[in-house]
């Protein structure tokens, strides 16, 4: 056993976990850890706010499926990452947050920059550790990474008192460990999968609902094989967007509050749903009662607590959804089950899809959201990674930006954190430097973490920020127009700031695109730029996101464009 400080042990343990970079911001209580960056191979990426560091780690984790790591100091540094932890927890994203803490003897004395981050973060982390002795650090790191990335992934907090970082101890880096109360993987029950197959085969109007879990477990090939073999149309949740190629004939796109009209219609008509890795959020299914009343639900999820939480299920399959779907694929092969594409249901699905493709009214102007996002899709290589912020642009992206390569679209879907997309795109670009990474943004959200431009420029992480700029908190404005008799309160952004100048002031490229022609050029310029680019696209502040399923109503009650 080598004797070293807790801080050195932390870095050594992280190197053993394969950590190549940390997003963070130093302060008094994490200086001993920062000092180690001078002596190890882990890259430090400096952020201008701890919240952004957390979102970067989150974006890295979602794309690479390995925990991203962020560092913050004690007190305000730690409280600043809370939103990042909550976002990662809501979307089951693997992440490690390491915070400095005041020395052990000072804990509870209201010391300078002391906060009970373990207590505060409790409901928004999968687990947390606060090593009280330097010798406890290696095992906390090993267990932390294991917990963060296994089962249903999530954020883990390591809160390390300053003296634990500074003091030396003989260090053992264990490969083996036990966590008695943690059983992340269940073997899917074969009999339940068989029953599920029977139910699907015997139903008249089956549909597949692919949730975020499908993407987390990379069950793309299995999903596609089942859909094609049984000729079942596929809808997704918003988080599951892109679990299935959206240019596939069986794809209907996301359901939900701003789901595709054809997806909501077909979901409302189906008699049996194979729901994969989804928690049936209210934003996806509308009212729970209306949803489950007419449907036989087969629910596959890695988290047993999701079964029956929001929806009563007919058949539950607990386990990694990829493992469950693999069993299903095997059963279909063994039993040579195959359905033809001429069923009444599939014909109806095809017609409905064609109808809405033809008849969904979009904004008539040259710079309507649909046209802008379709242009982006046209010019982006299919392997590009897209993140979004939260608001109208996010829902337009859901409606009009088709994800072709599965697992290339990420958004803060559960917590709905404005300001997530830009730092997350930086984390994503670090994970996938070989592909273009675009943050589809609105001006309201981008304002919240725009100072990450400094990180993108100085750390040479050339992402593209695609700002649909209506100079308004657009989604709030839409609700005020729809539900509050057009009393517009607190939504006007007043054309401030000028995003082109803002980008330039950080040393990034700023381009304003006011026509389709300019947009075409701007996207091409951004794609060939070796510096981060902000494309500012002024749009009509009155444009609504439609269709719209009002809260508390069912998916069949869509408000459509008039």
């Amino acid at each position: 056993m080598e004797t070293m400080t807790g801080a050195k042990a932390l870095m050594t343990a992280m190197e053993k976990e394969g950590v190549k970079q940390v997003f963070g911001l130093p302060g008094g209580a994490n200086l001993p850890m920062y000092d180690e960056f001078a002596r190890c191979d882990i890259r430090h990426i400096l952020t201008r706010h701890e919240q952004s560091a957390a979102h970067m780690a989150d974006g890295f984790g979602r794309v690479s499926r390995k925990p991203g790591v962020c560092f913050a100091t004690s007190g305000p540094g730690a409280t600043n990452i809370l939103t990042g932890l909550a976002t990662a927890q809501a979307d089951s994203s693997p992440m490690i947050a390491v915070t400095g803490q005041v020395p052990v003897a000072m804990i509870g004395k209201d010391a300078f920059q002391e906060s009970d981050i373990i207590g505060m973060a409790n409901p928004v982390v999968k687990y947390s550790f606060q090593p009280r002795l330097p010798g406890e650090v290696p095992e906390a790191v090993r267990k932390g990474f294991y917990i963060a990335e296994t089962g249903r992934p999530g954020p883990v907090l390591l809160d390390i008192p300053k003296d634990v970082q500074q003091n030396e101890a003989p260090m053992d880096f264990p490969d083996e460990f036990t966590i008695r109360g943690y059983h992340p993987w269940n073997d899917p029950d074969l009999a339940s999968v068989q029953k599920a197959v029977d139910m699907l085969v015997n139903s008249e109007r089956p549909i597949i609902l692919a949730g975020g879990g499908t993407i987390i477990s990379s069950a793309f090939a299995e999903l596609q094989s089942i859909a094609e073999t049984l000729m079942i149309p596929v809808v997704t949740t918003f988080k599951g967007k892109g679990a299935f190629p959206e240019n596939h004939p069986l794809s209907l796109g996301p359901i939900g509050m701003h789901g595709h009209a054809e997806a909501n219609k077909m979901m409302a008509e189906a008699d049996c749903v194979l729901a994969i890795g989804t928690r049936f959020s209210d934003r996806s299914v509308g009212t729970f009662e209306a949803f489950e009343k007419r449907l036989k639900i087969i629910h596959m999820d890695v988290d047993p607590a999701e079964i029956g939480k929001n929806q009563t299920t007919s058949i539950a399959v607990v386990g990694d959804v990829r493992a469950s779907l693999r069993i299903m694929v095997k059963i279909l092969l063994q039993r040579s089950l195959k359905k033809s594409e001429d069923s009444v249901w599939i014909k109806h699905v095809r017609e409905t899809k064609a109808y809405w493709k033809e008849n969904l009214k979009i904004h008539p102007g040259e710079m309507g959201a649909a046209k802008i996002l379709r242009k982006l899709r046209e010019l982006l290589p299919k392997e590009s990674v897209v993140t979004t912020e939260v608001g109208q642009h996010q829902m337009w992206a859901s409606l009009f930006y088709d994800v072709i390569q599965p697992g290339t679209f990420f958004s803060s879907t559960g917590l709905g954190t404005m300001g997530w997309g830009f730092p997350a795109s930086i984390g994503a670009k670090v994970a996938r430097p070989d592909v273009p990474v675009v943050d589809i943004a609105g001006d309201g959200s981008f304002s919240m973490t725009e100072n990450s431009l400094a990180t993108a420029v100085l750390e040479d992480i050339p992402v593209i920020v695609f700002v649909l700029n209506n100079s308004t908190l657009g989604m709030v404005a839409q609700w005020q127009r729809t539900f509050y008799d057009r009393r517009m309160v607190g939504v006007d952004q007043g054309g401030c700031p000028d995003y082109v100048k803002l980008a330039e002031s950080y040393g990034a490229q700023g381009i304003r695109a006011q026509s389709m022609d300019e947009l075409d050029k701007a996207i091409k310029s951004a794609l060939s730029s070796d510096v981060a680019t902000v494309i500012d696209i002024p749009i009509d502040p009155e444009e609504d996101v439609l269709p719209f399923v009002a809260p508390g109503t069912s998916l069949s009650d869509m408000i459509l464009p008039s």
Partner: protein
Amino acid sequence: MWAILSILVENKPGILFKVTHLFRSRNFNIDSISVGVTNNANYSRMTITTYGDDKQIIQIVKQLDKMIDTVEVKQLDEHKTLFRELCIFNIKLSSANDSMEVNKLVNAYGGKVHDVKKDSLMVELTATPAQIQAFEELVEPFGIIAVARTGVAALQRSGV
């Protein structure tokens, strides 16, 4: 529905906080809670009683089970479980007759009388929550000065 949950947890600081926080954040209610270390010092046993419909109770058990610090979570069947609560009453006495009456009730419920004063006495009662409730209703007319309850401790009977 009233339910008794038996939760074996790691005997570490902060676990009680996490368990009770789960009830708060998931909008469940704790009716009573008792905690103590087990014969194996690595574990503590929490006994929580709660109310909810079947679906809610199943959800509580699953959410507790999902917690990494819980080693075993069980909903106990009342009929196969020994469950008791300790309750201490301080009861007002207005006359010598009151003292006799209260003593009779205490004997009937298998309780013990302590700290007898001219105008009050204390009662220690170990019973089921329902029995404690019944006793409380019976002594209510005398005047209850204060009550302290431990919450239910419960173990499933062997071989059932």
